[in-house]
């Protein structure tokens, strides 16, 4: 029971991070029908931005500011850096190709992803960095949950992720811009004719999606400690899987999918072997694509000729 609870908490933590990254994939796909391969790299740069702020503030063991302020600043910096990269990607790698063949933006996205990876390798070298969170927030702190104790950092990550997801849902459903986002993703041309500034909506989507990925990057740094220049690739693939499992283009779907992938991974690692964790996730994707390509909460896509 204790072990099961532990794995469940692990899964919930992982899952909320995957959900945050998956949201960016799903929103962009919903609007542009484009798979943003470079999203994983956006997340990786977010993690490094958080690390940079932490280092400037004196490192985790010798902070010059209160811990809560340091964490807020880390999240803020990650959001800014990731959002800037996301918007630049949209403007320079995807917008020129909007009326191009379907394959062109994908190739551009792979190229951009590879470029960003190499840029990170150049700037941060191949050594992995550690947030060294235990000296930031002691590992003994936490909330008791039955036989186990949930570390404060995990609580922080899970709560923040859920608050962000609720805010995003409210924003998309209630606000004016959110309505525009929904309109553009429903039918871009019709939205443009109704006077919606499509370019602006797309930029806002990239901005929000990338900022969420940046927050996800800092969260991974806080919980798992290790960040490195290749971390975006596999996390990006898994988040994409999450988006597809939930139904790509659907915002609640991305959250559900993220949590499912998180649990699947945590239980596989806990009960079978960590060797299988990636294979299980990939297998899940393949099964979902074959059995229900529109995902759990997605609408089947109708093609008009």
């Amino acid at each position, binding site marked *: 029971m204790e072990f099961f609870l532990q794995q469940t908490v692990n899964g919930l933590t992982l899952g909320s991070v995957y959900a945050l990254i998956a949201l960016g994939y799903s929103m962009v796909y919903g609007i542009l029908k484009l798979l943003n391969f470079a999203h994983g790299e956006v997340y990786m740069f977010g993690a490094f931005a958080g690390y940079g702020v932490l280092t400037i503030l004196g490192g985790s063991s010798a902070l010059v500011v209160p811990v809560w302020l340091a964490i807020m600043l880390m999240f803020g910096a990650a959001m800014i850096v990731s959002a800037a990269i996301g918007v630049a990607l949209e403007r320079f790698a995807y917008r*020129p*190709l909007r009326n191009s063949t379907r394959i062109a933006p*994908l190739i551009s996205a792979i190229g951009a992803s590879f470029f960003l990876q*190499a840029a990170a390798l150049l700037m941060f070298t191949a050594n992995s960095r550690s947030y060294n969170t235990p000296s930031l927030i002691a590992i003994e702190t936490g909330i008791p949950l039955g036989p186990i104790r949930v570390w404060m950092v995990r609580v922080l990550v899970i709560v923040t992720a859920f608050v962000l997801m609720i805010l995003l849902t409210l924003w998309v459903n209630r606000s004016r811009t959110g309505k525009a986002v929904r309109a553009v993703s429903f039918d871009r041309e019709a939205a443009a004719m109704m006077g919606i500034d499509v370019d602006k909506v797309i930029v806002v989507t990239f901005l929000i999606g990338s900022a969420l990925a940046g927050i996800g990057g800092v969260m991974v740094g806080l919980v798992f400690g290790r960040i490195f220049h290749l971390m975006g690739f596999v996390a990006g693939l898994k988040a994409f899987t999450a988006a597809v499992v939930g139904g790509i283009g659907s915002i609640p779907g991305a959250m559900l999918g993220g949590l499912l992938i998180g649990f699947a991974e945590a239980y596989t690692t806990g009960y079978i072997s960590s060797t299988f964790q990636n294979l299980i996730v990939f297998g899940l994707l393949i099964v979902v694509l074959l059995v229900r390509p529109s995902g759990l909460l997605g609408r089947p896509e109708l093609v008009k000729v």
Partner: protein
Amino acid sequence: MSQIGVDQWVEQSDERRQDYQGWTAPARRLFDKLAPGGRLALFLLVAAAYPFFVRGSDVRVGITILLLAMVALGLNVVVGWAGLLDLGYVAFYGFGAYFYAIVASNQLPAHWPTWIAIPVIVAASALLGALLSLPSRRLVGDYLAIMTLFFAQVFVELVRNFERLPFVSDDLNLTGGPNGIPGVFPWELFGFSFNTFHRNYYLALAFVGLLIIGLHNLNDSRTGRAWRALREDTLAAEHMTTPVNRLKMLAFAVGAGIAGLTGTLFAAVQVGVFPNNFNLFFLITMYAAVILGGSGSIPGVVLGAIAIAYTPELLRDPGKAGWLFYIGLVVLLVVVVRRWERIAATVGGVIVFGFIVRVVASGIWDEATMGEANDTFISRLIDDWVLVLGAQSDVITNYAFVLAVVGMLTVVVASGWWKIAALIPTIYLAVLVWENKLAFQPSITRQLLFGGVLVVMMAVRPQGLLGTKRVEII
């Protein structure tokens, strides 16, 4: 891809045939006049003479080029002709290489003779390609891409983690895990062992020649035309009773077969296979070759492979790399600015800007000019102009790198004299980053270059250097 109406398309048909403009026109006209057979003969002649004029280590480079050309020709079938974005292609290459390594090394007690191993491996790779295309046949575009990317990941995970087949035998070490398989035997046909670089070079060249002939005919055949129909509009092709699913499967199978064949050669030449040979980096390299040369065009793909495979060799030697960088910079400047008075203004501006920065920086901080210049001709020439940092060079070049990238993006959106104003600091920063860091990091430079090539080519010239422009008729 531009969009034009039907009438316009018909009207322009003559222009399309003699569309030789710009400074490459004479070369292209000559190239087009030559019959395909003549082009191939010319290429083979030059390639066959190559080993006689270079050192032994450069023959190894030649093999790398030819192998990349082979695998890129196969990728071109899937991506260029059938229009299927197959990101799992590297797995077929790896499959062929591992298969050959397992049956032609001390990994297993039994060794297969080459003349049995090669046909079996090619057939098995093609079968695997067809098999993996089965789940993909319902998927289009992005889903196909991501699905195949997962296959590539699964392949690497499998060879890395499952060196011992579960439930079979504990002694049987199949893939060697993370250590790979060393000591792969060379090809041996009719008692003749391909155990030197020269022999392997000619073997690969023969395969490239055969592939080019075969693919050229395939492209002109019924199947080739059907593939292009599929690429342009799958739905319309299906309505014309083209067997879409079978064609997709065939494209995957042909591509995978070629990749498997290349893999066996690769394993034999490298005398070993390792999981890292088949990672994302090689996938990007193949795509860069196909996209740069022009997807869909056989001469384009071969040219792309030559350019992409030769780049690392140029970058490895700091002297040559310097020339490559500065010539590239000048070419880019000419292409971006175009008007000579503005080019002159930019060059003058960069020189003045550099001296001002130098004076200011060395006034504030002694370390700014303390570094050792590279020991190459150009670096010594500009040592008194650009900052070669002594201390803190990592941190400062990181900021310079970010600023240079931002500057390049600004240049893309700016116009008129604003573009020149943005270019001047950008060029200076690029030179600074090059002299302080990139020149010593050939492998990172290569990654940046290949990634950049894909993005820039897609935006500027999606048809590649030698490809034909695709026009959508509405």
